[in-house]
């Protein structure tokens, strides 16, 4: 019991919360960026633009089938070979964005494909351009269908930020390791704290997702 009380000294709690802050910071930025890039890539892949869509599709398939951990390594240890030397937090954001964008792109593409072709044809037959038909008719329906898949992808994203601990990003998981690295008795309390904090953050996001989903339908 004393271990648990000591584990949650003010200093440790503050340190853990600083980590939480970094986790949220990385997550929010990566969510926003990967939503934007993922949507663009998904639409390009759906649009069947000669060569472009095939190249985009090929790259997406590669990224989706590489472990995120490896992408984090590439960004942090590989990019310097190309003259880029990102700090740990930007490196984590870049890696998360690259990986999650390709996941979101696939969700967006299949979301668009789930809208019946009749919607596109109905719109095009009135003289709307492809982009107008997408924007006014197809995408609003597609995104409505996609909300659950996108939210669950972002929940994974938040949890996956813990992988960034491998390049010593000062996020929550890494801070917990620092704390129990000083005293092995703190291992269990820290794991418990991590579980609770990740749960709270992810569950909050799920609830927000449900509210958005209800609002759209």
């Amino acid at each position: 019991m004393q271990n648990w009380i000591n584990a949650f000294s003010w200093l440790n709690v503050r340190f853990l919360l600083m980590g939480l802050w970094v986790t949220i910071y990385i997550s929010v930025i990566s969510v926003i960026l990967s939503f934007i890039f993922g949507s663009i890539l998904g639409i390009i892949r759906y649009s069947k633009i000669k060569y472009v869509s095939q190249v985009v599709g090929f790259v997406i398939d590669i990224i989706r089938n590489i472990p995120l951990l490896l992408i984090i390594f590439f960004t942090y240890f590989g990019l310097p070979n190309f003259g880029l030397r990102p700090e740990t937090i930007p490196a984590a954001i870049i890696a998360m964005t690259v990986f999650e964008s390709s996941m979101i792109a696939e969700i967006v593409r299949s979301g668009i494909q789930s809208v019946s072709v009749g919607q596109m044809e109905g719109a095009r037959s009135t003289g709307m351009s492809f982009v107008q038909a997408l924007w006014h008719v197809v995408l609003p329906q597609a995104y409505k269908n996609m909300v659950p898949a996108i939210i669950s992808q972002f929940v994974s994203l938040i949890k996956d930020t813990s992988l960034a601990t491998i390049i010593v990003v000062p996020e929550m998981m890494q801070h917990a390791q620092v704390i129990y690295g000083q005293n092995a008795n703190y291992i269990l309390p820290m794991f418990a704290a991590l579980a609770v904090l990740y749960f709270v953050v992810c569950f909050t996001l799920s609830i927000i997702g449900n509210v958005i989903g209800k609002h759209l339908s």
Partner: protein
Amino acid sequence: MSMIEFHNVQKFYGHFHALHDINLEIDQGETVVLIGPSGSGKSTLVRTVNGLESIQKGKLIVNGHDLSDPKTNLNILRSDVGMVFQHFNLYKNKDVLENIMLAPRIVSHIPEEENKKQALDLLDMVGLRKWAHNMPSQISGGQKQRVAIARTLAMKPKLILYDEPTSALDPEMIDDVLQVIKKVTNESGMTSLIVTHEMGFAKEVANRVIFMDQGRIVEDDDSESFFKQPKTERAQQFLSKIISH
């Protein structure tokens, strides 16, 4: 003046030869009914007219636009060529009024006031004004199709294509829709190309009947002669089968 001209048009889906050497000229103001057995290529033919399907060979000219030329701007063509689909294809994310107002707003850039007035007038015409603020999911199939017709008319098309507009409807809804189509074709002087299995309606509305089979135009005649006695055996068989049902 001709509205549609097919010159030796060939259409393939991959290796499948869907339209064989189509030659057809439809004049402005004509109401042409296109009939034929399932899979004969009626939808395919109609969909080539507004470029929803591409053609592989031959020349196709619609309202002065050459569809065999890849540089032709299909959006401009389509703003003058309406299409009514078997499954209505109303925009599920927009209410009835918005379904009608969207294309005039973003394609023809009609002032909002005028657009709204036109949409409400069209809803009056099809008898659905009080449904203006319902979503498509809240109205019946027959009502959906009448909205779809109003949506097409809102673009003031010179030509309307109908692809089995009543095939997806419950029997008791069919008449309302046919009534509206008759009104539109009679009053407007518009050109219409109609695929339908409703022979009574076809007889009433058509000036001219085209019978297709296996991707070919087998018969092309004025409505009266066709329904009195088709020239080809194939069309006779088809007619007797469909009328006895």
